[in-house]
């Protein structure tokens, strides 16, 4: 318990949707250790993004507590940097302005901001693009900038909401490797939402499989494959098959729900 960095205790989240209560999260308990890379895996509607948003402080739980280093979360904050699926770069800022923004808010001195921005541009291979606007960057480049923007905060925790979901397979793998390199170098605690089994197995120390409505934890699985991981190895594929089965059960419940909703229409 004492080495736990993020602690989620008996968290429930209930939404109102179409006059009905939707139990998005139900009795979630999760302990994430310092420096651990945890993936939240499940089909859409399983509450994995809801849980991430609760940790981020965007949408607090209906009941239960979430603490970071023992302190309860009340607000979003730069100690938990978030990377969004839609990149969410500020289009009116250049690459370097986007990266510097968090530091300016913090009130960091100008030379220190410049040094940090230079360092991050170098670290994420963005130096040639520093003066570009987001519209002139590819999806992969934009997500690099978004990661750099969050790293600038030096937050001990990185929250990532399907950050590579919109990217093509090669760019995706490339950024996954990049993220693993950064994680090894910077020793961040990462909570990473994905619906890709392979992504979870490739990245995570631990994969938490969630159920479709109500969102509960179905399986909390330690992935002890040696790194760097070989996606073609028998061990990797055995795990992939197991997780695939777990996920298909939830996916079919989602499908049933959707068919039922369509039938009502």
């Amino acid at each position, binding site marked *: 318990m004492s080495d736990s960095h993020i602690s989620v205790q008996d968290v429930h989240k209930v939404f109102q949707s179409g006059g009905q209560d939707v139990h998005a999260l139900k009795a979630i308990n999760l302990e994430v250790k310092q420096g651990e890379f945890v993936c939240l895996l499940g089909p859409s509607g399983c509450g994995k993004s809801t849980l991430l948003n609760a940790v*981020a402080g*965007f949408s607090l739980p209906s009941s239960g507590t979430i603490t970071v280093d023992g302190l309860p979360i009340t*607000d*979003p*904050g*730069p100690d*938990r*940097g*978030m990377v*969004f699926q*839609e990149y*969410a770069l*500020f*289009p*009116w*800022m*250049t690459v370097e302005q986007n990266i510097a*923004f*968090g530091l300016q*808010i*913090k009130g960091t001195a100008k030379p220190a901001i410049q040094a940090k921005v230079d360092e991050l541009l170098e670290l994420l291979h963005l130096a040639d693009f520093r003066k570009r*606007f*987001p*519209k002139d960057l590819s999806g992969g480049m934009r997500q690099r900038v978004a990661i750099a*923007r969050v790293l600038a*905060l030096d937050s001990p925790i990185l929250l990532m909401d399907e950050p590579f979901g919109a990217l093509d397979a090669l760019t995706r793998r490339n950024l996954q490797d990049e993220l693993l390199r950064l994680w090894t170098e910077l020793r961040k605690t990462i909570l990473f939402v994905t619906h890709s089994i392979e992504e979870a197995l490739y990245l995570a120390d631990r994969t938490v499989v969630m159920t479709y409505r109500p969102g509960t934890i179905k399986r909390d699985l330690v992935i002890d494959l040696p790194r760097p991981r070989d996606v073609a190895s028998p061990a990797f594929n055995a795990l992939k098959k197991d997780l695939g089965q777990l996920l298909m059960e939830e996916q079919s419940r989602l499908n049933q729900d959707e068919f039922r909703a369509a039938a009502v229409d």
Partner: protein
Amino acid sequence: MKSYRRAASGILVPLVALAFWQLLSSMGWVNATILPSPMRVLVKWWAYLRPLEAYDPAQMSHLKWVVSGELIQDAMGSLYRVLVGFFIGAGLALPLGLAMGYSKLVYGLFNPLIQVLRPIPPIAYIPLSILWFGLGNPPAIFLISIGAFFPVLMNTVTGVQNVDSIYLRVGRNLGASRLTQFTRIILPAATPYIFTGARIGMGTAFIVVIVSEMIAVNNGLGYRILEAREYLWSDKIIAGMFTIGLLGLGIDTLMSRLSSHLLKWHRGLEQA
């Protein structure tokens, strides 16, 4: 090569129209008082543009002499009213629009009144404006301000209301205060809308200045073409109209250049 051909094809229709117009006049098909020939309009235009008196260094500087012609004086008069009116109207609309877009409370307070006043065309304020401000620049500037006010206001409100909530979430995640959220996120995110409103407002201001000069002011391009009618100077009327058109085009081009320069980050303008 392509742009050369496009320019060539763009000039074709005006040339044909001009030739047709000249033909109408040369053949004597229409009364020259009703429709003078393009040549006569051009000659009148030049006379309208030229300084009235010969250059006399003792009287004024060369520059002052060059712009002393009636047309340039009229154009400057109209432009002055447009700019002052626009900046008053837009200057009032911008802060109110930002407040209404940002705060539901302010929106709820002001929106009903705005919705009632907005459909009243600025022209309909003419009687009141003369009653309140008499004749001359003040009523004209008042009318122009009203013309510029509503487009800037409505677009600013929409711009602020349509700021993608993801940007605000990022801002909160980075620890931005409400003030920082407003100045560094909401304001820049709304600028494309605000500039669109300013461009429409400037267009309206330009329409209103001509009308108001026909009624309340005794100089400016609008006044001049109405005055020319009293003398049956149809050539001067048409010369004045073309001047109004060119000036309007110039202002709009300037506005659009300015906004695409300031909004070069904006995705919608990539091809512009």
